[in-house]
């Protein structure tokens, strides 16, 4: 745990600063709520429907691809550190790992998950 204690203190300090700021503004600022002021902003007209609707599936797909890639990168950290010792064996092992992931990446690419454009015009 050496070296981590300061970070915990840092988190506490940061949270204290942010919390104190919000709290201070509660006391210092005026409070005149009106129904119009408390309505969500939608360019000056009453909002239509609820904002929390189901979002386009594209966003979830990106999130999932990101997860895969980020886990891949997480594997890369220890590998990158130990590369000298692992030598060519380690290099080719990670290359195989890469190839597997890349094939997935190419599949996703060809499937058009990465295309957000206006190509398919309605």
């Amino acid at each position, binding site marked *: 745990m050496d070296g981590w204690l*300061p970070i915990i203190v840092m988190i506490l*300090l940061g*949270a204290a600063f942010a919390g104190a*700021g919000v709290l201070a503004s509660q006391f210092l600022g005026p409070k005149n709520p009106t129904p119009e002021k408390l309505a*969500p902003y939608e360019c000056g007209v009453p909002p239509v429907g609820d904002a*929390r609707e189901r*979002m386009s599936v594209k966003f979830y797909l990106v999130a999932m691809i990101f997860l895969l890639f980020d886990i891949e990168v997480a594997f*890369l950290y220890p590998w990158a550190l130990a*590369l000298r010792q692992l030598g060519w064996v380690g290099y080719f092992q990670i290359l195989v790992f890469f190839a597997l992931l890349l094939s997935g990446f190419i599949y996703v690419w060809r499937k058009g998950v990465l295309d957000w454009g206006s190509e398919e015009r309605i």
Partner: protein
Amino acid sequence: MIDMVVIPVFKMLVVITAVLSAVAYMVLLERKVQAWVQVRLGPMRVGPHGVLQPIADVLKLITKEDVRPASADRFLFTLAPILVVVPALIVFAVVPFGTSTTMFGKEISLYITDLDIGLLYIVSVASIGLYGLILGGWASNSKYPLLSSLRASAQIVSYEVAVTMTLVSLIVTAGSLSLVEIVKAQEAHGVWYVFIQPVAFVIFVIGALAETNRAPFDLPEAEQELVGGFHTEYSGMRFALFFLAEYTNMIVVSAVGVTMFLGGWLAPFSSVSWLAWLGLVPGWVWFSLKTFLLLSLFLWIRATLPRYRYDQLMRLGWKVLIPLALVNLAVSAVLKVLL
């Protein structure tokens, strides 16, 4: 007692205060630089040449009415800005501003802590802020903030992959995850990593712009499209925290970039004998100077370029930067094994 408690806490307070004032003046600098590019003067009223503007801004924000929309989620609406700002601040715990200095007869290191997995820490902590953005957009229960927080999250995760890959290729070169060690490795190599890894540096800078939502990738807060972005519904101090976090993040990525690529606290031209006197300047001065230069690049880019569109941004991230980063990583690994 003094070594264990007083000095570390003192260092933390110095760092936090320095970062916060740097952010405040960063805003002023940005407005001034933008103004100069655009043949204007920028803030001129508060103090000579507007130097007191940040203080006036802070006072104004803290005494503003803090409006929370009636349909918003009470708890998350307050949690979101805090969740954004805390990770941005605590990243500085591992950034080395210099090696060490002697103060009151004591050797004091110019970093709060030197984690042996410092880089991993930065990457992970920086991602936490993303939750704040999503929660803020969702808690507002308003369409523009929600749309923009979705944009923000998709954009940030896309570029995060590319950025972390460039960082991995740097780890391959440096052989360490500790930021202090990485700078020392650059000292030992006798060359900054920007010259060894130029491709990685370019990817890093582009990714940094995208991850901090800066122009030309400032889509989540593109006011011409989405009004205010994910903080449309925020006002007063809670809005200020989002703002603070954004600028802190800019300083964070610049500081990390300087540490990783531009030799951290090292003086430039160390091999040129007649410029050896540059080494007399304290390391933290060099560090601040380089960070400042990288930040100025951000401002310059903002004043010059139009904004990317969403699909183009995703395409650049996934189809250009990530493959490029992968190739760069493979090449650096080959070189590392060979040499």
